[in-house]
């Protein structure tokens, strides 16, 4: 019964007819039931049951949409409790904007929730079935999960060609615009198109922009926290994508609203035109008050045996790198080894065994790998685990321990258990039920949750405010994601972050980079993204640069100096970023954006 085809399509069939109810309104009858009933009468059946007949009408009564504007989405999502500004936004899009809007809330106010509410409302009303959601590749699964869990919308991630036939598909725009997908999508009528991180469409010459222009859609939502960054034309392009003509033609727009590419004029007219298509919520002055993050680095010294393993692995990895002639891509598993050696001997052991198996029997590498395994055998105790244990005892509250490695997780579980500390694991590979179960245990009896990186996303742990980074990822975003599990809306306590930092290893450098140079642990949410984007624009990803510094340095002194350089350029980028931010505040666009935005008060 959903309005899935354009009206022209179904109206031409012989079983429908049209009459005017009003000069503007046609009444269209679907007459297919008459033929069907006649046929069954002729054949004397088959007939359905009276009870089901009554239930059918009862079900339909229950589902009936009584009014044009009362929100239905909330009625069907009893367990879901969006914030007031999110509900307001959904209402505005539905009632005032006809379902085409730019959602331009500041970071962290829940654009995804707003989009989900609008989508759910249209689906419940039978106005939307076919939906395409285009997001950066890294966000695909997060969207799918959120739509399924929060909104009960059966969204699927695009994987194969046939996935496109599902009603609600989430895909990356880079996949979607490539053949053979492109043609398929351009030949589909989408009831709803949603684009996340839409500021990436600010340039109308890009293939992404042209592709989105060509997609046929009824309703459309563009999500971005930064609808305009560098010049007014970006804003014009974005709005033209949504509703061409809303700001006039390009030359009119330039004549009416632009003094200089960074300076608008006739602002009140421009604001008027913008507020018809764009909604922006920003934090009010007393707005979101996040609690503080208190960081403590816990330096620890490896035992002689552990240090021996670290040195042996480092030497082994470096030697392989030199043999490979400086080819970083083939070094992936070895770099992993280097990172694991800072975590636990168990993690190293597993990787070494796998490496051993993969190495041909006559290779000279085999005995070398075996030597390393022998070094592992010498290690009796795990200094880090001991430190973590005493730290947890000292804290004496709920603690979440993050590690990158499954083997470390297993080891810690056993180690804690053997010391009468109740700990539960959490990882990405667990199914939903098991995850919920672990979460319940952690809320209840267990004092410690040990999570691997993959399990980091999608868990909300506001009831806990201590976290230990047992090892540190080399990618700062992953660290931020970890912190974000605990330090988020709803957290009422200051969050304490402990970084275990083994002296004299690469870990010491990483901690110093993340903590002192980026000041990662004290950044405002959303700021890290911007810093990294800037940094990586100039050079390779931080992760890669760390790996290279590690592999190429001939000795401790060179390593130190390379890390100093890295730290230096990070500090610079951060300073630039801050300059840019303060410029933004005094920017010509800021008053414009502020003028069309609603301050909202969000209490944690």
């Amino acid at each position: 019964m959903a309005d899935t085809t354009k009206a022209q399509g179904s109206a031409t069939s012989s079983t429908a007819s049209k009459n005017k109810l009003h000069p503007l309104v046609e009444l269209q009858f679907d007459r297919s039931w008459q033929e069907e009933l006649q046929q069954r009468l002729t054949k004397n059946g088959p007939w359905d049951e009276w009870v089901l007949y009554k239930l059918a009408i009862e079900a339909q009564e229950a589902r009936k949409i009584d009014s044009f504007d009362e929100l239905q989405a909330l009625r069907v999502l009893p367990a879901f409790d969006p914030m007031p500004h999110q509900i307001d936004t959904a209402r505005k899009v539905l009632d005032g904007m006809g379902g085409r809007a730019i959602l331009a809330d500041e970071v962290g106010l829940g654009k995804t929730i707003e989009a989900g509410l609008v989508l759910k409302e249209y689906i419940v009303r039978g106005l939307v079935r076919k939906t395409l959601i285009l997001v950066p590749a890294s966000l695909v699964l997060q969207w799918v999960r959120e739509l399924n869990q929060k909104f009960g919308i059966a969204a699927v991630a695009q994987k194969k060609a046939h996935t496109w036939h599902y009603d609600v598909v989430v895909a990356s725009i880079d996949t979607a615009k490539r053949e053979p997908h492109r043609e398929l999508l351009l030949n589909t009528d989408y009831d709803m198109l949603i684009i996340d991180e839409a500021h990436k469409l600010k340039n109308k010459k890009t293939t992404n922009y042209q592709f989105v222009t060509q997609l046929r859609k009824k309703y459309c939502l563009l999500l971005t926290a930064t609808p305009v960054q560098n010049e007014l034309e970006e804003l014009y392009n974005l709005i033209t994508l949504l509703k061409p003509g809303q700001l006039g033609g390009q030359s009119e727009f330039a004549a009416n609203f632009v003094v200089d590419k960074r300076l608008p004029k006739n602002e009140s007219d421009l604001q008027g035109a913008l507020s018809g298509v764009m909604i922006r919520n920003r934090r009010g002055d007393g707005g979101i008050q996040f609690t503080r993050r208190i960081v403590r680095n816990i330096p620890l010294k490896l035992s002689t045996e552990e240090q021996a393993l670290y040195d042996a692995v480092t030497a082994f990895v470096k030697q392989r790198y030199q043999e490979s002639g400086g080819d970083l891509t083939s070094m992936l598993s070895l770099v992993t080894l280097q990172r694991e050696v800072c975590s636990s001997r168990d993690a190293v052991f597993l990787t070494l065994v796998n490496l051993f198996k993969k190495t041909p029997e006559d290779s000279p590498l085999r005995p070398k790998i075996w030597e390393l395994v022998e070094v592992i055998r010498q290690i009796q105790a795990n200094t880090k685990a001991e430190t973590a244990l005493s730290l947890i005892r000292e804290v004496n509250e709920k603690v979440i321990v993050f590690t990158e490695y499954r083997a470390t997780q297993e080891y810690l579980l056993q180690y804690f258990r053997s010391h009468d500390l109740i700990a539960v694991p959490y990882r990405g590979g667990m199914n939903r039920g098991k995850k919920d179960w672990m979460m319940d245990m952690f809320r209840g009896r267990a004092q410690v949750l040990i999570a691997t990186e993959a399990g980091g996303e999608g868990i909300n742990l506001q009831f806990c405010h201590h976290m230990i980074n047992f090892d540190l990822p080399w990618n700062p975003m992953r660290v931020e994601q970890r912190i974000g599990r605990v330090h988020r809306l709803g957290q009422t306590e200051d969050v304490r972050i402990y970084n275990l930092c083994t002296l004299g290893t690469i870990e010491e450098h990483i901690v110093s980079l993340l903590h002192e140079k980026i000041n990662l642990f004290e950044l405002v949410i959303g700021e890290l993204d911007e810093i990294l984007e800037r940094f990586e624009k100039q050079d390779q990803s931080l992760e890669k640069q760390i790996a290279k510094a590690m592999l190429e340095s001939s000795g401790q002194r060179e390593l130190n100096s390379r890390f100093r350089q890295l730290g230096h350029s990070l500090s610079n980028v951060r300073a630039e970023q801050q300059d840019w931010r303060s410029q933004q505040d005094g920017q010509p666009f800021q008053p414009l954006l502020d003028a069309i935005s609603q301050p909202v008060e969000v209490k944690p």
Partner: protein
Amino acid sequence: MNTKQIHRFVQHYLESTDCQIIEKSPAHFKVKLSPLADRILTNRPYYWGFVDRTGAEPETMSFLFVTDKERYDRAQEEQAGSEPDQTDAALARSFGYVHGTTAGARMPREDLYYGSRRLEQLFEAARSGGSYVCLFQEPELRKSHPLQSTAYTPWLGVNLMVEFQCDRKREEIHSYGISLATGQVVEQFQERLAGMRMTPRLPPNIHIARSAITLHRAAGLVEQALEKKLRSYDYSWAQEAAERLEEEQQLIAHYYEALLSSAEEEQRANIEAQFENRKAEIDWQYKPRVQASAINCGIFHLAGID
């Protein structure tokens, strides 16, 4: 739909599909599905394909359907809090008695609230399983006289879903009955039927009045009646939608005409195609319209000549 209505709905559905209700309270059902319901509800086409091909004895699934979550959870907690019954346990040991018939069997829990997928599925199942009927009103026992024949009138009954739609939408349900003997049209026909006992078999000692009008003609009368009724409605919503539509059409016309007038020859076709696309999209989005379709319908033979 409140929890009570949901509960009743679920009960009726389970009963009508011959499911075996193992245990129930006002807040839940433990149920072993009938083969019919299992086919419809569990989405196991391969399993049923296997059963059909091999003739194996089907093992249907069992569910715990919770219709009132709060109440059920509270009851469970209280039960868990109270001491387990010692005598029962002792008896169980000596007689090998296992509590409940499904102990050990997997019984997934599903909370049925308005908006949940499972309830939505039950709605859908009811809809497709209750579309077309042909029924007779059961004669009242005390009135029936062995030598006297009661006159029955055949009626066409149809429940119509009317959708008022532009970029927004609302719905109404209209229920019509048309006497095939006289052509009389009755509104709210379903309410009239709701209280009656019906049977699919022709009862004894009745005779059915001859139809004076065809089904086709009767359906025409329904359409006329509905149309007449709908004409008297307020269409300001449509007016507003049409205005928005017109406004948007003007905006894009202005935009694209300017674009076309300054466009290079080779780009024109492309821009024109986009223009047409955009026009169609706006129509699709805003055009006010009303659609009527049948939810279900049937022939009802009712006592009396009307």
